[in-house]
């Protein structure tokens, strides 16, 4: 098609503008990586810090006079909250996915999905408030020695936060199992329960695994619930009753405190953020690979 020169230039400009907008997101990632890499290298090149101590040290006290930079307490804290969240959220999420995909009528499914979306839509600061002021006092009646700030209640509430993630992705995976497979199973005399256990779950395993990994990544990066309810005291422990700190809650604590920019304490938050970013990025990539590589193809 022939266009006048002016029209052609306009078309070019329009396409170019769209491309520029699309590239902004790549710039964002580049910005995140550049900031984290640059600041973290500056942090590690400080004589007071060593990479080895960072990954193996059991003390994390950048905000005290005697500064120690061992990230293990933050990692154990994060993993403890995340672990509790997964123990709660994954089974519940998978069960509701089975319900949605295999049992619920279309109408029921819409309603249940709506409830789960509501749950996913509650701001995490509200969930943190709930964990601190409702769940913790409740748990303190049953769990002796439970601190006011503890990973137990934070993890429990976070489990419900990740439930919708697990559920929605797994439901999609289960619904993608072809009708032919289901009919074949029924044809061989399987009951519905046998169908779920031996056909639907194995056939949608890649989607289920991906949903769990994504939920894991979301739990690791979740900030407000842990900041409010799990505390800000880096402690190398695996006791879920004690106040701990996570990577995210340390970032909030360090950033909202008044450390002078450029000080070692302020830089340490970039090292923590870089670790956090690396972990979540790895998890996201793994979940994408799982979906792409191990998806059962039905042609």
């Amino acid at each position, binding site marked *: 098609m022939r266009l006048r020169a002016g029209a052609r230039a306009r078309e070019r400009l329009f396409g170019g503008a769209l491309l520029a907008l699309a590239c902004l997101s790549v710039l964002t990632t580049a910005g995140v990586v550049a900031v984290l890499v640059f600041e973290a290298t500056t942090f590690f090149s400080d004589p007071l810090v060593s990479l080895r101590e960072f990954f193996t040290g059991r003390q994390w006290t950048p905000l005290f006079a005697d500064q120690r930079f061992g990230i293990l307490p933050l990692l154990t804290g994060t993993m403890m909250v995340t672990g509790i969240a997964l123990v709660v959220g994954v089974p519940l999420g998978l069960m509701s996915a089975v319900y949605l995909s295999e049992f619920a009528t279309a109408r029921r499914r819409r309603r249940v999905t709506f409830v789960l979306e509501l749950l996913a839509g509650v701001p*995490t600061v509200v969930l943190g408030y709930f964990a601190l002021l409702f769940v913790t006092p409740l748990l303190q009646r049953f769990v002796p020695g439970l601190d006011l700030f503890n990973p137990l209640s934070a993890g429990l509430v976070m489990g419900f936060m990740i439930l919708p993630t697990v559920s929605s992705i797994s439901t999609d995976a289960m619904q993608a199992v072809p009708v032919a497979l289901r009919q074949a199973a029924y044809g061989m005399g399987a009951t519905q329960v046998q169908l779920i256990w031996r056909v639907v779950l194995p056939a949608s395993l890649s989607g289920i695994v991906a949903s769990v990994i994504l939920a894991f990544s979301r739990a690791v990066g979740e900030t407000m619930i842990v900041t409010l309810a799990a505390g800000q005291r880096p402690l190398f422990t695996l006791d879920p009753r004690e106040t701990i700190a996570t990577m995210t809650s340390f970032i909030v604590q360090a950033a909202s405190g008044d450390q002078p920019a450029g000080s070692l304490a302020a830089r340490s938050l970039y090292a923590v953020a870089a670790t956090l970013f690396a972990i979540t990025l790895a998890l*996201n990539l793994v979940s994408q690979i799982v979906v792409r590589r191990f998806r059962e193809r039905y042609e």
Partner: protein
Amino acid sequence: MSAVRSPERIDLPDMLDVGGRQARRRRRTVRTVEAAVAMPVLLALLLLGALLFDVITDTLSWQVLAPAGSGRSFAFAEGFAPFGSWDRVMRLELAARGVPAEDIEPLLAAPEERRVLEARNRVEFMPWVDGRPFRWLVTTVSDELVADRPLWSGLASRRELLAAAEPGQVVVLNAWLDPAFVLRNASRSPLVAGLLPAFVGSLLLVGLVILLAVPIGVGTAVYLEEYASDTRLARLIELNLSNLAGVPSVVYGILGLTVFVRLMRLGPVVLAGALTLTLLVVPVVVVAAREAIRSVPPSLRQAAYGLGATRSQVVLRVVLPNAVAGITTGVVLAIARTIGETAPLLVLGAAAFVPRPPDGLLSTFTAIPIQIYSWVSENDVEFTHAASAAIVVLLAVLAVLYGIAYYLRRRFASR
């Protein structure tokens, strides 16, 4: 692909063994499993219910006050006037404090005097005062709080509170969430702390984020759907978008802190917050917009091309108008995300205490979730009540937004 899920789904063995014991046992197992896997939904509902119940009851508390004012309360009808309750109740209160009748009007009329009065006194509507329902009470900054009991425990011990109250003290059921709470400036004193600065801060953020994120998000979606062929660049952008959606929001906060606040020397201001949140919600808009654009039938595009339209004309006059409902859904969800997001703003350095609403894009600010966080971390019973009242406001706003998104999606889906 949709699975077979019709009620007449056939269990062949059952048909051969209709009413048999084995078939009945099997059906029972299936029903048990169905009930079991439906459990989490019930739990989720219970949790949501408990959350709402907890938050709403936390906005009410029984209090014993030692008032610095007259300590008298006034009937609802006595003090109520549309938009003028403050003046009417204040007149009654000043009279009760013993101010001569002829001095009251000049006191309320003089701007300077009025400002002082407004700063020190608060006209509150209480559901219950000293045994009488629905009263106005003027509380002041110098009131002393003798006791504060949560609604339910207090219900049992109300009599006890009344009996224990010394002469001059007032026992009230204080509703923290009243219209004045939303319209009042912040304060160091929980009794007079209001949500206005945070509310305005959140509104400003939402406005800016829409202005920035909608063009970026929709532009990206149009590029990916209508322009990009399967080039390396397009695949990079796509991969990048799906990974950006998984980046924890605190990390965005750190990006904002480093680039906007420090490198660009903006400081922790509204604009810096909005830019940071824009980066955060762009993937949300992109995903929704792409889905909407993909659902525009190709025949429409082909018809437009057949009439000699250029690509930009097809995009602007055919694709986008037909995708508007889906895009709007995405925008509404992005707004909801903007309003509820706390961590990035906190890392950015959004101030916990901002006495007045921001007066421009370059002034420091706070937002509703930040205000909630800082009130909760005050670790003070009364600030907790203020936080719960703020949560109710936040959840109400979100409920409206999700309602709009739900409605749009249903209309969109039915077409």
